[in-house]
């Protein structure tokens, strides 16, 4: 059909999916949505499987014109979304009518928000993934953020989503309006306060002990500010300079998202979704996986502090987070099943 036309692109809006895995041995970064919890929840709310392409919006969102009816969901930072000037509720499925203009403003608390549509955004699949990877010129939409005038195609929604859309249309009845929102909503972690401080837990790395004693203490006692040069590749942190006890060359080693590296200048870098696959700077600590979604909501200028935790605790928190996602998935599936029965 006619998709979605970009009227204003926002600060940095890219199509992302769950990441392209299995290719790090060829130097291809997995990429994918920076903030996985909101990305996955938005997709679940519109009946999509986990890895379907959605629009990742950063700091200031886009203005989009829908050329077709679409079942959508918005999760993540609150960018005060509106449809035709009216407040568009987040964290629930919403049927937006063709001709509506959906606009996102500046984020209030957090920095990243996800717009999922039933069926997903229809962009070319490159290297087994749909995500945008600008550093290597890889697709999403020609490997770049969206621009004014772009037309984003929408793939066909599944049966469940079509049924849900019909259910919402029926709720509207005789009222006119650009959208109909479901009455229920979900609470999506991470919750991030508007005070713009992000406290995350880390595991010390093998090279943590190479930090000077003073730096080891500083890492946990002081806060850092997310620098302006921070992006999907990594966050450059400004604050107390950290130092190794002795300078030493390190052979490049594979890395993970959340790796806290220490370059010679002393300002740590936290690697994020589009990181290079190997790093030559000493990795002194690792943000735990369960806290990555929280960190992904930090914006330049926000402050970050670190707390040391144990591997056992990190694994426990990860397992708990996965359990919560599965519960959410089941709850949404039940809602869809209910609607399916209604429509029979």
């Amino acid at each position: 059909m006619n998709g979605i036309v970009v009227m204003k692109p926002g600060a940095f809006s890219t199509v992302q999916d769950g990441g392209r895995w299995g290719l790090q041995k060829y130097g291809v970064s997995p990429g994918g949505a920076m903030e996985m919890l909101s990305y996955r929840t938005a997709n679940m709310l519109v009946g999509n499987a986990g890895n379907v392409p959605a629009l990742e919006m950063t700091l200031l969102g886009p203005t989009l014109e829908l050329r077709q009816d679409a079942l959508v969901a918005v999760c993540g930072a609150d960018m005060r979304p509106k449809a035709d000037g009216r407040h568009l509720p987040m964290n629930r499925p919403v049927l937006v009518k063709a001709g509506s203009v959906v606009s996102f403003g500046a984020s209030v608390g957090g920095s990243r928000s996800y717009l999922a549509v039933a069926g997903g955004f229809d962009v070319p699949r490159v290297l087994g993934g749909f995500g945008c990877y600008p550093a290597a010129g890889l697709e999403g939409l020609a490997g770049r953020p969206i621009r004014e005038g772009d037309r984003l195609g929408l793939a066909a929604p599944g049966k469940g989503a079509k049924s849900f859309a019909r259910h919402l249309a029926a709720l509207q009845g005789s009222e006119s309006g650009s959208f109909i929102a479901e009455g229920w909503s979900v609470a999506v972690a991470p919750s991030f306060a508007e005070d713009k401080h992000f406290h995350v837990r880390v595991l010390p790395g093998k090279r943590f002990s190479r930090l000077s004693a003073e730096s080891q203490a500083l890492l946990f006692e002081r806060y850092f500010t997310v620098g302006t040069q921070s992006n999907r590749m990594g966050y450059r942190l400004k604050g107390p300079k950290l130092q190794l006890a002795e300078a030493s060359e390190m052979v490049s080693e594979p890395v993970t998202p959340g790796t806290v590296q220490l370059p010679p200048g002393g300002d740590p870098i936290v690697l994020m979704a589009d990181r290079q696959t190997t790093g030559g700077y000493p990795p002194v600590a690792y943000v735990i996986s369960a806290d990555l979604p929280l960190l992904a909501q930090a914006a330049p200028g926000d402050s970050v502090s670190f707390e040391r935790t144990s591997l056992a605790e990190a694994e426990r928190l990860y397992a708990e987070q996965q359990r919560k996602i599965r519960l959410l998935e089941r709850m949404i599936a039940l809602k869809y099943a209910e609607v399916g029965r209604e429509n029979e």
Partner: protein
Amino acid sequence: MKPDIYPLGDSALIVRFSEYTEAESINRVRSLFKLLKAEPIPGLIELVPALGTLAVYYRPDICGFREWRERLLPLLNRLSVTEAPPANRLSIPVCYGGEFGPDLPCVAESAGLSEQEVIRLHSGAEYVVGMIGFVPGFPYLVGLPHALATPRRTEPRVSVPPGSIGIGGNQTGIYPVSVPGGWRLIGRTPVRLFRPEERPPSLLSPGDIVRFIPIERGQFAEMEHRAL
């Protein structure tokens, strides 16, 4: 060599065979990779061979680090009798010097050799791909003759032309795409190292054996033309 197993955060670990890059540890990495592919441990997401190490990415809620270590140890014991899979051999044509190798003179000077001798040494060696990283398709090659080791530039170039052959410290490599880079550029290949439309997307894989074949400017132009 007793391997070291340590976590990278909560969802990955490293099996490290040595602190130094060497062909023997590369073979052990390749053997372990082959064993783990054949008998995957539950929760395994991805394996990444690197210089003297194998990185394992996994779901910690399925098997945690401790369980991974328990399951890896018997496999590591089997490595001494496991043969590394046969390596692919590739020849990479390189046009050395001139506009393609702006740093060839300084590598020669630093080594106390003529440019011709640098070319002879570089192309005379056999290299092993230790790992692919930094950018898609970029090979870190082990086996650079010691005489040619040259420190990186203090200021990286803003953009290195794709196909450039570089020397960085005691490693040599090839830039597959245009990126900023600090290695010393000594030549260029018309061959594409990164092809996103193919599987695998990288011409080279960890463990491959590579030789460089010097070619003339004219041959370079012809090969480049044919590759399009």
